[in-house]
């Protein structure tokens, strides 16, 4: 048995170390470690409740708005505040803008550069793929980065700036856009649709959203001159649709509600072969393998985060181990699209389980589904109607905010006592996906996904491990917070 430590992993958001036990050319055991502890949950205690809106986005500069949305939702929940329709539409637009931008930042900057590696130099597709996607130098960046900057004007108009906005409030949003801003925003979305349809897909968004099976997906990708099809062509030759399977239990907190009475655009739930309603009361966080004090796994409303200065036997990370009804689950775009009932996502997972292809395809599929929906939300905004209901801070209250960040289910659990925050617990998407073992010894999702991957003797940087880890689009800064 040899031990291979891979770190700093890089091209993930934050600090990641993966330790692998390799025997007979295959990974037998993986330990995933987050090496940074900042203590945001402690910072929040004693603060005025609305201050959470300033503090939590600063957990993460790529999921900033998702953290804000979760805090705003938890605060609203604590007093039963409902936002006006314009505020809901603007909130959806702001969240969707971040999620779409994040999916593409992941694809172009974090994920695709691995295919330009020297390790693939013998492949017939390597020269073209490297020219297109190499880190820092690939010519895709000259297309993607300006398109992303232009798209972020959605944030400029609706949220002032990104990352780290205060536009998302418990009662709605702070900027009541004017008729001219609505027209400008329509132009922004139209330009971004053109970028997606030319450069990312070489197809209309509606054609991509209509793909309903792996066979249809690969047939569509054949000979198509655009970046997502390029990935699919390479992934087929490498068999990446059969690599990276974790638990095949998928969690979504639901995303893009339009009003409290209707179901969310992407439904919430747990999928283990069939979809079941979401039951957040079954969520606990275990600290048995984390450098944190505590014995029993605790539900987040009564959770705590107490770092240990001197380490702990058996612990290997700062990350807690969240469990849903005692089980390890996976979250992210693939989970969302499965719970949303999208035929392509369901077929990918039913045929082969979750995989590198499944996770990446789900992200791009989601982009194709979200942009048209953003166009609809924008069209429905009525300048002149209210965007924000008035908040007033309660003396007591409990609130839960469950949202979907780009990377998956994000939850905030908040207790207010005597007008101040008494407790604040956060479970981020990558906390689920990159969780360590729990007290029962169950490895987390990535720790399972890495098992049995081949590692050649002397290879310190096995490419398949690179692909599988990044297929989850990890955000390590959110993970520990």
């Amino acid at each position: 048995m040899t031990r291979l430590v891979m770190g700093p992993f890089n091209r993930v958001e934050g600090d990641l170390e993966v330790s692998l036990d390799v025997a007979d050319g295959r990974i037998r055991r993986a330990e995933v470690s987050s090496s940074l502890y900042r203590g945001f949950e402690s910072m929040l205690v004693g603060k005025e409740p609305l201050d959470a809106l300033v503090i939590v986005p600063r957990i993460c500069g790529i999921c900033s708005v998702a953290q804000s949305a979760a805090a705003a939702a938890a605060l609203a929940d604590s007093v039963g505040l409902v936002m006006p329709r314009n505020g809901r539409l603007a909130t959806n637009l702001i969240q969707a803008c971040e999620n779409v931008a994040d999916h593409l930042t992941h694809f172009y900057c974090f994920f695709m550069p691995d295919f330009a590696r020297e390790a693939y130099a013998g492949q017939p597709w390597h020269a073209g793929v490297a020219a297109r996607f190499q880190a820092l130098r690939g010519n895709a960046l000259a297309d993607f980065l300006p398109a992303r900057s232009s798209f972020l004007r959605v944030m400029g108009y609706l949220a002032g700036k990104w990352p780290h906005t205060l536009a998302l409030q418990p009662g709605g949003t702070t900027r009541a856009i004017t008729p001219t801003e609505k027209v400008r925003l329509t132009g922004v979305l139209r330009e971004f649709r053109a970028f997606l349809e030319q450069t990312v897909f070489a197809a209309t968004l509606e054609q991509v959203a209509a793909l309903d099976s792996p066979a249809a997906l690969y047939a569509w990708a054949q000979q198509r001159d655009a970046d997502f099809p390029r990935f699919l062509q390479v992934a087929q030759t490498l068999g990446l649709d059969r690599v990276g399977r974790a638990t095949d239990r998928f969690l979504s907190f639901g995303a893009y509600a339009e009003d409290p009475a209707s179901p969310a655009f992407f439904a919430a739930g747990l999928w283990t072969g069939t979809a079941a309603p979401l039951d957040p009361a079954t969520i606990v966080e275990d600290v048995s393998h984390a450098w944190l004090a505590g014995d029993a796994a605790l539900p987040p409303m009564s959770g705590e985060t107490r770092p240990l200065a001197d380490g702990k036997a058996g612990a290997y990370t700062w990350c807690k181990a969240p469990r849903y009804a005692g089980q390890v689950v996976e979250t992210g775009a693939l989970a969302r699209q499965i719970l949303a009932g999208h035929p392509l996502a369901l077929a990918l997972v039913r045929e082969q389980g979750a995989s590198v292809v499944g996770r990446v395809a789900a992200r791009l599929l989601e982009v194709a589904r979200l942009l048209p929906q953003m166009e609809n939300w924008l069209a429905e905004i009525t300048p002149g109607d209210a965007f924000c209901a008035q908040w007033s801070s309660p003396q007591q209250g409990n609130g839960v905010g469950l949202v979907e960040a780009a990377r998956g289910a994000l939850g905030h659990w908040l207790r207010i006592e005597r007008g101040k925050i008494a407790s604040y617990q956060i479970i981020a998407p990558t906390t689920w996906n990159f969780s360590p073992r729990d007290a029962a010894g169950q490895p987390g999702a990535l720790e399972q996904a890495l098992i049995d991957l081949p590692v050649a003797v002397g290879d310190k940087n096995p490419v398949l491990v690179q692909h599988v880890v990044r297929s989850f689009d990890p955000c390590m800064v959110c993970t520990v917070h």
Partner: protein
Amino acid sequence: MNLFWLQASGCGGCTQSMIGGDARRGVLEQLASAGLEFVAHPALREESGEEALDVLRQAAAGTLPIDILCVEGAMLRGPNGSGRFHTLSGTGEPMIAWVRRLASQARYVLAIGSCTAFGGINASGENLTEACGLQYEGAERGGLLGADFLARSGLPVINVSGCPIHADWIVDTLMTLAGGTMTADDLDDLQRPRFYSEQLVHHGCPKNEFYEFKASAQKASDLGCLMENLGCKGTQAHADCNTRPWYGVGSCIRGGFSCIACTEPGFEEPGHPFMETPKVAGIPIGLPLDMPKAWFVALAALSKSATPKRVRESAVRDTPAVLKSKGPRK
């Protein structure tokens, strides 16, 4: 010039903001065309694991020159000075040890963002992680590297503060360094580049008419001035956000919410709720910088008496009351 980027205890938001900068073919090509090459960047370079560590080791040993060391994120010295709240993955060593090694080799050292400059949000609350900046702890000189630290060029740490930074603040600083024209005179008394820190967020504020008449917002999404009631520190904050909009169109104030002075040391612990203005006898405590208090109070009282009805009404609405045009001349 070799750009060496290290992520310390940060959120990565400064990098996310930087790559959103305005450039026809993207910021990375813009920097490359000025001769600025990233030899290390945790979010952007290909190297992973051992490959990435090799680059760090060569740089620490001086065999790979570091022209510009950019650090993004605070220095965590805890627990108990050990630095173990943040270890560099793959090494088991505290990040602060690596920062010290690399800073000693660099021609220029840049603190990217308020976390790296002063400690930032990490220093909020009890600061159990003992977070500080590269050369400052809050507003106090010292930090991790100490008050006497000078990079090999002879300059102290350049504090490109902000939370996050505006993309231009880092791009323009790098371009100035690439052009060889940065001197100590270009930095203010907190070592921030004066090209943006000499402005106040107040300059170009879109709510100027409301400020003029002290017609103030009372709740979120009101159009009025945010200073009197909702905690806005734009009159005190050093940054050019309202003359250099974000993504060409936005700023915190344009977005309808208060400036929290994120370029300043200690912004993370204002000593009052962020979105409330602390007052004594109804008068805001934090006044515009360098303005005599008694005159400010007198001026404010007169302004309120002169407020046009339209402005007074609009201040507490989310859409403006209309200014009627005079109609055709007779």
